[in-house]
């Protein structure tokens, strides 16, 4: 019988030799290519991984049963570029959501029929949003679209005009009816006036026309209006892209791909380390979209000559009152999880002055920044957070959230490193077929 201890000892020796050989081999490999994984702590690497692209499938929207219908997306893409829904026939969704500017308009605040008060958010990856608009006053992408059409500063349109536009255009009407069923006979102008909507000023002609319609006809027009929103949302759900230098670098980190780890500049890597680590940026800018999807009061001073904007406070009130919300009659799942969220909305006044955390993906292309576009450059934005309470002096709306105090002071070099990192979140362009108007609806 062999001595088990000596057999074990021999095995240990052989393993040690093997380990030494493998270590030497590994060191050779390692010396040929630096491994960036050594730049980050375990926690930082985990945080980087959490920012990687989500599952390929865009989250469903059960309130829109046409959300993933290709025909709806094709119709929606046509309508996205169609200017006929605006009062003067000059503006479409594309007017403010331009691919060249990351599906924004490069303005401080939106401008269509009139100058607005808020910066235009990007549509890229918006399908992952929990809430829509800076104040979350829409709880679905399709409900968001409808508000733009009737906003007097944006399209200044109305739902009856939308219905008539579809009804009067043979191709559009056929495309609509293939998806949503037969339109009512809108040729009867007594029943269906050319212009009408409920939220116009009480004494306006459009409001009077709306009041004069029967409940059934109003419902029929609301249905057409909501279907238009659902088609455009079905298109917008395709505006998804997670292929940025950051993503490629993070995947290279995860796989140990040496060449892939050279995709970011040293400054961008320092900025990334700061972002996921000491800088505490990802407390709010978390997950694949670099946003928690929630609302925060960052203590912005009120600027002279601007209206007081209460943000989420008013957004919650408008969302609850909106007949096109997830629990409403035009939702395709009135009792589902999205409708349930409405029961859990916080007290509006607790959210005074809070605005939605914007995504940082493609942020270099979506200047200016913050809900009112007050900062022209990323450097200014980062500097605002780096300056802490000092940057929030003066009159404010609501209470500055304490989370902001966790952001440390950044040196000028660190500010530039963070900016260098943020620029790596720029995705490759979407396929041209997705970013131009189709010839047919």
């Amino acid at each position, binding site marked *: 019988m062999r001595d088990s201890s000596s057999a074990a000892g021999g095995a240990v020796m052989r393993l040690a030799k093997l380990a030494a050989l493998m*270590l030497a081999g590994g060191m050779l490999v390692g010396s040929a290519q630096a491994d960036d994984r050594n730049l980050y702590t375990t926690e930082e690497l985990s945080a980087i991984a959490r920012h990687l692209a989500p599952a390929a499938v865009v989250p469903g929207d059960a309130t829109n049963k046409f959300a993933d219908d290709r025909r709806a997306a094709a119709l929606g893409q046509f309508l996205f570029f169609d200017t006929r829904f605006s009062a003067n026939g000059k503006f479409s969704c594309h007017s403010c959501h331009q691919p060249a500017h990351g599906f924004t308009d490069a303005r401080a605040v939106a401008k269509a029929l009139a100058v607005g008060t808020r910066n235009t958010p990007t549509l890229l990856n918006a399908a992952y949003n929990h809430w829509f608009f800076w104040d979350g006053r829409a709880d679905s992408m399709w409900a968001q679209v409808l508000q733009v059409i009737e906003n007097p500063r944006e399209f200044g349109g109305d739902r009856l005009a939308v219905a008539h536009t579809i009804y009067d255009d043979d191709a559009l009407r056929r495309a609509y009816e293939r998806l949503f069923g037969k339109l009512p006979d809108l040729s009867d102008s007594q029943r269906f006036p050319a212009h009408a909507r409920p939220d116009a000023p009480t004494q306006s002609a459009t409001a009077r026309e709306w009041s004069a319609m029967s409940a059934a006809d109003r419902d029929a027009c609301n249905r057409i209006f909501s279907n238009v929103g659902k088609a455009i949302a079905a298109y917008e759900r395709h505006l998804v892209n997670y292929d940025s230098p950051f993503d490629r670098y993070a995947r*290279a980190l995860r796989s140990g791909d040496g060449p892939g780890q050279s995709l970011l500049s040293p400054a961008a890597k320092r900025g990334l380390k700061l972002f996921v680590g000491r800088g505490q940026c990802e407390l709010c800018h978390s997950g694949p979209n670099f946003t928690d999807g929630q609302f925060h009061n960052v203590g912005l001073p009120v600027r002279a000559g601007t209206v007081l904007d209460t943000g989420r406070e008013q957004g919650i009130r408008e969302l609850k009152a909106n007949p096109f919300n997830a629990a409403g009659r035009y939702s395709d799942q009135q009792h589902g999880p999205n409708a349930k969220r409405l029961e859990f909305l916080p007290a509006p006044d607790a959210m005074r002055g809070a605005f939605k955390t914007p995504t940082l993906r493609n942020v270099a292309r979506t200047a200016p920044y913050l809900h009112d576009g007050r900062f022209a450059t990323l450097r200014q934005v980062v500097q605002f957070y780096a300056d802490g309470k000092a940057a929030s002096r003066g009159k404010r709306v609501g209470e500055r959230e304490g989370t902001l105090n966790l952001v440390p002071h950044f040196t000028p070099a660190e500010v530039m490193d963070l900016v260098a990192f943020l620029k790596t979140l720029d995705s490759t362009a979407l396929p041209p077929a997705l970013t131009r108007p189709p010839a047919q609806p």
Partner: protein
Amino acid sequence: MTPTNLSGLAGAALAAAFSFSISPAIATDHMSMPMSDKPAHFKPTLSAYTANHQFLVKITGLPDPIPYQKYFTLRFAVYDGHHPDKQLSDAHLTLFAGMRHGMKKGFAHGMQSSPKIDDKAGAISADGMYFHMMGKWTLKATVKEGGKQGVAYFDLPCCGK
């Protein structure tokens, strides 16, 4: 196949060779690349007394792990703090959840959800809890029963997927 995918495959081979060559004795934890989607966890507080042991509040239902950025439900039972076997059927609960982020007093921020509390017949549930940020959340549970009031605190970890 895109160039990115090709380099990913090459990188995977490189990573396999490199990671295999590091003996456990010299590998640092960050070189092991856990790349976990879960942050570090701690055990949640499942029972807590209010001041002077007036009430004992127990969390009897808690998802494990607590989901990240998804609504969840908590269940509670309230007991007489001086007679911990005696469950109180008329206790009412109000909740506030927030994160202190190192603050000794108060909260840096709260939840962005207002849970619905059902406290009929002693079986108390809070539907609509929602943690939007990773880290330690503190739940402040205020108990009212028979003209008395007390506050119990619970620490809850956020989050799993």
